[in-house]
């Protein structure tokens, strides 16, 4: 159970300012990200000011081909890098002169920051815990309040901010999560989700079976291989209402891959119905076609259900151009709009944590240091979205 301190007073910007600045720390999986965000108060001329990204840097823990990232090793990576990344973020962030009221742009100072935002979950326990230590330490040293952020909410709010999508159905697809989300009555409600493993996890694990590199990311490499796939191999397709399941597909396609690599095997599984030899590229192609079709289908169901024609794709798998293309085909058919971001925001990052944390902070929500324990399980619909109406 996540506890917040909720004040009935909304915090004001620092004296003489019309903006807030937050630093965000993200480390729920193998990416360590730090971002610094500036949000302006609305004015007459700009009633909905855009947030300004002052800095958004990341360091990814890459494992050798065939290996996944283990919690302990990932946590060690984050511990080794988090201080360096925070330092760099401060050095790289520039506060524009028109904000500071000074003559020239200048590097940001610790005192410019209003709050320290960190990912409180969901994610891998050990990596989360190593990052929150740094968040607590700087919160105490800099005397700035902590704001715990739900990782999924970070993705959603950043996607909304960057794309300007007002009230979209959100498809959140990453290594740890697969959810179709729609906003209603101050919650991001989960309309459909995976009943077992996440899409990204399914792709990552298949990349390991194929022993393809984890750099820059296993999903990216699968996407490149899939472009050279020629034969569509039928795989299980498991959509249950608005939910989906992927473990069966992974087991099936893993088995096919093992047959292909086994030179002694003469299984007919190695050939298409027209007698052609199935290649790893074919499998990547078929796997993408199948699981992305499932994702687009449940997204379309959610759209029909809540009667909206906007779709926002967030999360690491959201970078996949084939997924975006399929989603676009569906959305255009419904005369709707699709919104997606590039990899600087799709892939886990610190700026989204700063963005969502700042939205909370401005509503008077902060996290007491004693309640700042991270949690592996933290559902998107547990968060009260105080900053949106009805």
């Amino acid at each position: 159970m996540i506890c917040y301190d909720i004040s009935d007073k909304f915090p004001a910007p620092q004296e003489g300012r019309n903006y807030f600045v937050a630093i965000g720390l993200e480390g729920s999986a193998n990416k360590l990200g730090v971002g610094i965000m500036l949000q302006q108060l609305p004015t007459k001329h700009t009633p909905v000011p855009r947030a300004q990204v002052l800095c958004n840097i990341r360091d990814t823990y890459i494992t050798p081909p065939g290996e996944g990232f283990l919690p302990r090793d990932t946590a060690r990576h984050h511990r080794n890098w988090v201080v360096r990344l925070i330092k760099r973020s401060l050095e790289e962030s520039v506060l524009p002169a028109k904000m500071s009221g000074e003559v020239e742009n200048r590097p940001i100072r610790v005192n410019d920051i209003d709050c320290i935002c960190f990912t409180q979950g969901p994610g891998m326990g050990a990596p989360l815990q190593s990052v929150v230590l740094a968040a607590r330490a700087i919160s105490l040293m800099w005397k700035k309040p902590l704001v715990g952020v739900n990782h999924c909410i970070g993705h959603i709010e950043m996607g909304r901010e960057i794309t300007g999508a007002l009230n979209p159905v959100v498809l959140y697809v990453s290594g740890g999560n697969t959810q179709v989300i729609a906003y209603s009555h101050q919650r991001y409600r989960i309309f459909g989700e995976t009943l077992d493993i996440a899409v990204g996890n399914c792709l990552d694990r298949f990349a390991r079976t194929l022993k393809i590199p984890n750099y820059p990311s296993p999903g990216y490499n699968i996407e490149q291989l899939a472009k050279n796939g020629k034969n569509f191999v039928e795989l299980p397709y498991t959509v249950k209402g608005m939910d989906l399941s992927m473990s069966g597909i992974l087991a099936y396609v893993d088995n096919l891959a093992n047959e292909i690599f086994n030179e002694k095997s003469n299984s007919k599984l190695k050939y298409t119905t027209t007698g052609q030899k199935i290649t790893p590229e074919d499998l990547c192609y078929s796997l993408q076609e199948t699981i992305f079709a499932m994702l687009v289908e449940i997204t379309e169901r959610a759209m029909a259900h809540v009667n909206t024609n906007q779709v926002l794709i967030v999360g690491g798998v959201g970078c996949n151009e084939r997924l975006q293309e399929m989603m676009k085909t569906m959305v255009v058919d419904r005369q709707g709009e699709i919104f997606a971001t590039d990899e600087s925001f799709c892939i886990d990052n610190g700026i989204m944590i700063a963005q969502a944390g700042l939205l909370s902070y401005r509503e008077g929500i902060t996290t007491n240091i004693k309640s700042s324990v991270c949690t592996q399980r933290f559902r998107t619909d547990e968060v009260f979205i105080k900053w949106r109406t009805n």
Partner: protein
Amino acid sequence: MASLPYTLKLVIPFETSHHADIALQTLSPDPELKPDQLARAITISESSPSELVVEFLAVSDRVLRVGVNSMMDNLGLVAECLDELDIANFN
């Protein structure tokens, strides 16, 4: 409550009592994952306010070693924060 016969006490000196206090507050919130196998108490030394004291009670030497290792990792990170991210370094 199982008996926890394996014990260890760490005393970590910090530059100032303020730093020791930051370390205490940073490290305290996270509970040990298996409290029946490893108990842990973090305090400020009564004799010296700049010394952090961490005491462990464990069910076995193996559990004790894992717990202490993890605490040392975390202490290392806190110390790095104190050294590198002090407000004085930036302003």
